[in-house]
């Protein structure tokens, strides 16, 4: 059987990264110029990596789907970014950030990776401030912090409700500088459609120029994927419309392992679904849970009256409100981790206490914060979020509580990578949300931005050199090599096949159907039966897609329907992978909740003796189930406990 080598360095937890850096191979400045690195993606991970590699002197080719690197999905992150600075003197430390992340991930992440993440977190804040990121400050001129779910310290740095935007614009600035210096070349409105493998190593990509429709070939000594997460498998999610999992599926089909696909995060605070034309779900930042209190009515008749529109939230007196998170989790209250908060909302709604005309929503109430702090303070903290909410729902959160419901938000699973962020294909790296990395079975708020930038600024620029140091003798290869030709042909064949179906269904109609299957059967609570149903339905839907989709227009021209179809063909694969992984994992952990495995109080019940491993799925060919490989997770430095947010 294949064994999986995660290449964790020797030594004490706190020494591993230093040991690694002290002994890794480096590339000297003269040789860097001779090495081409392809970076796909310009989100926090991709942009920070491309900028850093460019600054080091490598020759970087950087791709994105949008018309500008600044528009990558990372731009939408609202709440903040964690770091172990302990500026608040409230007891934070690298170890505590490490520990909270490991615990938050329900003991399904690698200790060494997570420790490194916590260790480099502080440099990220320094870097961003130096770039001119306007983080929020206190009156004394020092940086301000707020608290986020799953932590008892205030370690989250933020820039109004636009932290992702400001961090991405910082990375985009750094990237722009490298473009100006000639070390990075940008390819915007390009979509990678396959990786090119030569003698077992990633040596380039095939990409489609989205404006002309032309298929083009690009060589790189190494290829880095910072292509984001696959939450849009669910159609309705908080992700941007263009977010997709295609690059991951392309390389999976070439042999890269896909790890823990079933670990997906359902975010508790999103604006509820309003109709079947809806195109996406809008997140209301988790930071709102700092001051907002979540409740549903205590009495069923009140819930029914609210659903029918016979009562409004303000008609329910305080004593008839059930602040269920504060009730169930006194220690963390409204700031429990996301998976816990989402399931608690579902539990109340399933029991008939939900609000909104659908019964699928709970209240997030600022009345109490306004009483305590005044409207001005609340407006200063959350004004832009309130405005966004009002524009969408036509309701004023200063006067009536917000309504929220969980929605798919983030995917912890992704491409398997070792400690060096290298996938199981040599020379192919994955960073940011695209890899399975550091969050285990559940990601804490404000930790994705941290991980994306840690990977891009401070980890990959080191670890990739350990690989590239052996490649300095390899001359740039011609893209006329047979491997490039074959990869391009495969892509062209796939496109031709899609165009020739000329069926009856639009891409979106099939994608919406997939989304419903995912939400109903692979969503917040999964069972053996629901997952079997999902797998069957997804198989059938895949058939429907490949025999009945309709794509107007031509392939060799701008064609937005074709773009969506190509992505949907891969979402269908991911949906299946998520289901099979969830089926296999007969335990509940973090964002993966199998109803068969819960405590009497309804909390997730892990099965450490059986499932303490990373599930790595290895492609076996079209219409065959993938092979499961296991990377054991040995906890050397922390004791695994049952997560407890009650006391």
């Amino acid at each position, binding site marked *: 059987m294949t064994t999986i080598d995660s290449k964790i360095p020797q030594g004490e937890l706190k020494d591993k990264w230093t040991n690694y850096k002290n002994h890794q191979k480096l590339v000297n400045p003269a040789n860097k110029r001779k090495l081409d690195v392809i970076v796909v993606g310009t989100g926090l991970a991709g942009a920070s990596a491309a900028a850093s590699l460019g600054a080091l002197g490598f020759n970087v080719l950087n791709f994105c789907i949008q018309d500008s690197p600044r528009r990558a999905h990372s731009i939408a992150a609202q709440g903040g970014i964690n770091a172990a600075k302990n500026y608040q003197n409230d007891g934070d430390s690298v170890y505590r950030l490490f520990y909270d992340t490991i615990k938050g991930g329900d003991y399904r992440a690698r200790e060494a990776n997570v420790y490194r993440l916590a260790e480099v977190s502080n440099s990220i804040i*320094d870097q961003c401030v130096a770039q001119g990121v306007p983080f929020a400050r206190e009156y004394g001129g020092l940086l301000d912090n707020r608290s986020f779910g799953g932590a008892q310290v205030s370690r989250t740095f933020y820039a109004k409700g636009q932290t992702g935007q400001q961090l991405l614009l910082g990375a*985009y600035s750094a990237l722009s500088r490298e473009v100006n210096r000639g070390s990075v070349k940008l390819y915007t409105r390009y979509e990678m459609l396959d990786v090119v493998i030569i003698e077992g190593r990633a040596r380039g990509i095939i990409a489609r120029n989205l404006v002309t429709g032309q298929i083009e070939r690009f060589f790189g000594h190494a290829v880095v994927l910072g292509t984001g997460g696959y939450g849009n498998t669910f159609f309705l999610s908080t992700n*941007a419309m263009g977010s997709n999992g295609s690059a991951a599926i392309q390389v999976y089909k070439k042999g890269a392992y896909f790890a823990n696909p079933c670990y997906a995060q359902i975010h508790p605070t999103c604006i509820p679904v309003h109709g079947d034309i809806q195109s996406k779900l809008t997140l209301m930042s988790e930071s709102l849970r700092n001051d907002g209190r979540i409740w549903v009515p205590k009495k069923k008749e009140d819930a029914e009256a609210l659903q029918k529109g016979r009562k409004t939230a303000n008609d329910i007196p305080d004593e008839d409100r059930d602040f269920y998170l504060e009730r169930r989790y006194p220690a963390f209250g409204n700031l429990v981790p996301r998976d816990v908060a989402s399931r608690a909302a579902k539990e109340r709604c399933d029991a008939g206490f939900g609000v909104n005309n659908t019964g699928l929503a709970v209240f997030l109430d600022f009345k109490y914060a306004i009483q305590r702090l005044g409207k001005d303070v609340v407006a200063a903290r959350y004004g832009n979020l309130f405005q966004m909410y009002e524009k969408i729902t036509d309701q004023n959160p200063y006067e009536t509580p917000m309504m929220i419901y969980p929605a798919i938000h983030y995917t912890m699973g992704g491409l398997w990578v070792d400690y060096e962020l290298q996938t199981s294909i040599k020379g192919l790296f994955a960073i940011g949300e695209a890899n399975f990395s550091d969050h285990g079975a559940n990601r804490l708020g404000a930790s994705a931005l941290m991980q994306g930038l840690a990977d891009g600024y401070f980890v990959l620029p080191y670890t990739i050199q350990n690989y590239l140091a052996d490649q300095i003798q390899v001359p740039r290869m011609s893209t006329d090599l047979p491997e490039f030709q074959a990869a391009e042909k495969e892509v062209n064949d796939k496109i031709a096949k899609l165009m020739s179906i000329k069926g009856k269904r639009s891409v979106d109609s099939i994608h919406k159907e997939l989304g419903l299957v995912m939400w109903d059967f692979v969503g917040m609570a999964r069972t053996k039966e629901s997952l079997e149903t999902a797998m069957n339905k997804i198989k059938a839907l895949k058939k429907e897609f490949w025999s009945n989709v309709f794509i107007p227009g031509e392939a060799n021209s701008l064609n937005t329907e074709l773009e969506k179809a190509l992505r949907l063909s891969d979402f269908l694969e991911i949906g299946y992978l998520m289901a099979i992984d969830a089926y296999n994992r007969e335990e509940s952990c973090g964002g993966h909740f199998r109803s068969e495995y819960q405590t009497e109080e309804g909390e997730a019940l892990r099965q450490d003796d059986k499932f303490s491993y990373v599930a790595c799925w290895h492609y076996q060919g079209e219409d065959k189930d993938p092979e499961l490989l296991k990377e054991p997770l040995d906890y050397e430095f922390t004791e695994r406990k049952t997560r407890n947010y009650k006391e």
Partner: protein
Amino acid sequence: MENTINITLKVWRQRGPKEKGFFETFDLKNISTDMSFLEMMDVLNEQLVAEGKEPVVFDHDCREGICGMCSMFINGHPHGPDEDVTTCQLHMRKFKDGETITVEPWRSAGFPVIRDLMVDRNAFDKIMQAGGYVSVNTGGIPDANAIPIPKPIADEAMDAASCIGCGACVAACKNGSAMLFVSAKVSQLALLPQGKVEAAARAKKMVAKMDELGFGNCTNTRACEAECPKNVSITNIARLNREFLCAKIKD
């Protein structure tokens, strides 16, 4: 309570940058007023696809007003009639039953049409590449709290930094000037000690690039400020002018 309206859409269609464009008219029935403008466009496109036709091409991604990708000129306004929103945040409740809605791309020499409502805003990237950054490499940076920054200054920098690079300011301007966009970045960085060092040189380089790329001059009509979805203030233009003068004096 769901309200619906019937509308007539006049949409700009154009195959490519060099081809002649025209308005195409569509009738849409039973549009929920809770829909966003782009969801209404999705309904239109699903109809077109069902008829075997090519959908109307437009840029969009985040659909929550932050990526700056959506860019429609609706009834004579960039991002439409509502205040302080992008096209994707505009909702159909802002329109009346029976209304005719005209949808065009950004029109400006700096932003050639790619197809239909999609334009090429590469020029903004080029202006950024000319100097929209602080020249620091990754790593070797002093502690983030080493230089305190007064809160009002940090807040002002944040306001300037909230520009989403959508280009509505250019589309709104009769001269096709990009001054609001450029000044927002110049201001943000000039306000902060980290960016101050290169402030004058940055202003000069970014303005030179803007001129080179065919954007017009600013004649203070304030149309940009009125249409900017993020409320970027034209006081930033005054600051840009100061930095620009500084650079000229140093020359």
